[in-house]
């Protein structure tokens, strides 16, 4: 009975989403206030039913309702309750439900906090969000029903994919979806602006915190995913250029460009059309990402067996969303273009260069990711693109950004002052060169590591100089408004990230070895002694657990317990053991027994020493923090009220006034 209730809730939500999208958009077009007024209540009602459906699925998991096929396939009696909740989004159907659930969270927040905006605009924004909801609800109802029954009901279920049974994995998908779906707000704004034919700076100001929050969530999700790959996939890498990682990375790249472009549009009115285009791209790539992960078109760790009906639906949906919004853009963008002119040396130019690099990088990743599909279509054979392609292209494209980064805050809008920039360049450059020389002695002349130190110092000194400048020149309380503090956090995060990536990439030592109990392996000053394997057990797995004692100069540092787990359905999962540290991680993973009959004999082990690897996640978290802090700026809230008052005399700069 309860699963059918869930299905019914989804059907009602679909009908309400239709009402939420069609009526207000027509209303805004015809100037019909009654039709526009439908948007908010319909959004709230749709939200209610989607939340209800989601809660019912969670309930089915908690109650072990194996008569629901999705529950039976992804959980069993031995699975702990927290993983049963995580199992809700552990496979295709549930993750689609999570997507629409989060879309409704964003929509509800938007409906609640948008009272100051002009009514036709809100009607259009909510209408566009409604249209997206229609697409997803239809997709769920027609191809991916999470409430489908399984009769006769089995006594016990299957299992949640063991790689997902990890604390990090319980929140990784919701967080990454918060990011993906959050870009739908910027998208809806842009489409609404195109439909209305005008884009007020005030609206962009209002949209900025939303985009920042979405971006911060996406950053957090990517960091969590990378951490999970490192700790849980068992082999110590933190980024594989896997299609699914790329799928989350492309919207991030475009989203990073977008939050900067929005700043330009809000403050100067320039780059309007570009900002709109970026919002369309960011959301389209999020959609592509969602589907790429789940459709099984590309072979990846995350993909599930595919269903041709789903693929077709996805293709149609993508064509409608991407094609439709680009068509609208082509028709209407000239109407919203405008803004103040700017010199070659100006903050606008610097942001534009950065934007181009981010967009090109996203295009590069897209090409590499979809190349197997292209090769397939052109009958070139089965092709995949190796990580070295990305590894070569990406740093090259990011180099100009890193070089420009220290100047960003010093550059004035409109026209920058060259002498100031020269001073910054001299100081940061000097510091970078000095640190690189010192580093060269410490790292044995490893070029990558030296470049990492130089780049990180270059960025960090640039940020620090600006922090000092503000401290000296501004009165207390006005030194670091949240927006600026966020920017400084995020830029400092880039420096920390650079240290982490380049030092760990160049200085890591990996050793795949065969070890019998008592054997010792040395990496640097660390001695790893293998003390054999014993059997152990968990709630829904049994495991062979190794013991490795690590000593440094004969002083014991850590006792590590890597495991090889076997889950309920005989799935094997490697659990690595990590000894964390600020300057290095030690990492041990258990391979296989050399003789399957005698697990107390020799084993294959992978030993790692990874200097500074934690810094790359720390850098990512700083960027995330920057996004959240910037979104909290009072300016975004205070002015909104002011705008509501002077709505009668808006400061809009439409095409007619600016462009000849």
């Amino acid at each position, binding site marked *: 009975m309860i699963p059918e209730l869930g299905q019914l809730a989804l059907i009602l939500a679909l009908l309400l989403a239709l009402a939420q999208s069609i009526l207000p958009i027509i209303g805004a077009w015809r100037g019909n206030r009654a039709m526009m007024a439908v948007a908010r209540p319909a959004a709230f009602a749709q939200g209610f039913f989607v939340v209800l459906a989601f809660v019912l699925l969670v309930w089915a998991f908690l109650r072990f309702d194996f008569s629901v096929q999705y529950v039976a396939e992804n959980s069993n009696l031995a699975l702990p309750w927290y993983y049963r909740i995580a199992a809700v989004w552990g496979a295709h159907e549930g993750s689609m439900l999570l997507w629409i659930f989060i879309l409704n969270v964003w929509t509800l927040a938007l409906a609640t906090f948008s009272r100051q905006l002009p009514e036709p605009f809100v009607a259009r924004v909510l209408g566009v969000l409604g249209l997206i909801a229609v697409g997803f609800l239809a997709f769920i109802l027609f191809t991916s029903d999470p409430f489908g029954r399984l009769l006769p009901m089995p006594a016990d279920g299957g299992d949640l994919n063991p790689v997902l049974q990890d604390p990090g994995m319980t929140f990784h998908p919701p967080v990454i979806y918060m990011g993906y779906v959050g870009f739908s707000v910027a998208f809806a704004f842009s489409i609404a602006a195109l439909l209305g034919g005008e884009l007020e700076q005030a609206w962009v100001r209002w949209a900025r915190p939303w985009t920042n929050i979405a971006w911060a969530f996406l950053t957090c999700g990517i960091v969590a995913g990378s951490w999970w790959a490192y700790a849980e996939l068992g082999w110590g890498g933190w980024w594989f250029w896997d299609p699914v990682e790329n799928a989350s990375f492309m919207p991030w790249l475009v989203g990073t460009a977008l939050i900067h472009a929005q700043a330009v549009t809000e403050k100067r009115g320039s780059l309007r059309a570009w900002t709109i285009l970026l919002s369309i791209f960011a959301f389209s790539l999020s959609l592509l990402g969602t589907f790429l992960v789940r459709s*099984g078109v590309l072979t990846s760790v995350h993909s599930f067996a595919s269903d041709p009906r789903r693929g077709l639906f996805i293709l149609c949906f993508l064509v409608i969303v991407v094609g439709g919004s680009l068509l609208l853009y082509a028709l209407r963008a000239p109407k919203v273009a405008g803004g103040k002119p700017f010199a070659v040396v100006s903050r606008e130019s610097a942001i534009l260069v950065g934007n181009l690099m981010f967009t090109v990088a996203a295009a590069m990743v897209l090409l590499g990711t979809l190349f197997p599909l292209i090769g397939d279509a052109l009958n070139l054979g089965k092709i995949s693109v190796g990580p070295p392609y990305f590894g070569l292209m990406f740093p090259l494209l990011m180099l100009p950004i890193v070089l420009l980064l220290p100047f960003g805050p010093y550059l004035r809008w409109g026209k920058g002052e060259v002498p100031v920039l020269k001073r910054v360049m001299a100081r940061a450059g000097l510091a970078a060169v000095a640190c690189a020389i010192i580093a060269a002695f410490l790292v044995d002349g490893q070029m990558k590591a030296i470049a990492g130190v130089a780049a990180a110092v270059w960025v960090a000194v640039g940020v620090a100089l600006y922090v000092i400048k503000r401290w000296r020149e501004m009165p207390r309380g006005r030194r670091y408004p949240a927006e600026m503090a966020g920017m400084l956090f995020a830029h400092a995060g880039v420096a920390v990230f650079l240290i982490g990536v380049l030092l760990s990439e160049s200085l890591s030592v990996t050793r795949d070895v065969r070890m019998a109990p008592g054997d010792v392996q040395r990496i640097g000053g660390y001695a790893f002694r293998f003390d054999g394997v014993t059997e152990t057990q968990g709630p829904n797995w049994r495991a062979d657990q190794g013991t490795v004692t690590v000593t440094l100069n004969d002083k014991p540092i850590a006792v590590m317990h890597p495991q090889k787990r076997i889950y309920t359905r005989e799935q094997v999962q490697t659990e690595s053991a990590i000894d964390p540290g600020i300057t290095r991680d030690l990492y041990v993973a258990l391979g296989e027994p050399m003789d399957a009959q005698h697990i107390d004999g020799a084993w294959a082990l992978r030993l790692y020493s990874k200097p500074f690897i934690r810094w790359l996640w720390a850098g990512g978290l700083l960027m995330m923090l920057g996004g959240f802090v910037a979104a909290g700026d009072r300016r975004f809230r205070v002015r909104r009220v002011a705008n509501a008052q002077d709505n009668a005399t808006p400061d809009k700069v439409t095409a007619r006034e600016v462009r000849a």
Partner: protein
Amino acid sequence: MPMNPTRKRRLVIVTLVVAAAALAVALGVYALQQNMNYLLTPSQVQSGQAGSYKTFRLGGMVKGGSIQRDKDSLKVTFTVVDADGAMPVEYTGILPDLFRDNQSVIATGHMDSAHFVATEVLAKHDETYMPKELKDAMAKAHGNKKMPQGVDQGDAGQGGAQ
């Protein structure tokens, strides 16, 4: 036609952007060409299709009972088969969790005389699922013959991975 400063600046900017774009595209194409890995099955390799590639991916099933470990290193040899081909593979390192007899596998590496030296071995999927691209490649290699499930069922019994 005389150039005013604005127009001149625009021209400079456009030239720079075009040059940068051309450079990026050239680099991208180069990097792509260097890193395209083809997926081939043993019979395709034996019919000489791998000739021109330095590195490629070999896909197929691990032949039952063919996994041989070296006594005192991490070297392991096994045979990858499809319907009408078999290819001995040599690999040094730790095999993935799902690697076992009669499982689909994709190995990246190069040919060394008559055998394949793998630098990476992937066996990502569970026992009921074969990577789609591998299924297609195998189907193509055999002119859309149905992918045989029992190529090596004969010796599956003595395989005994677990």
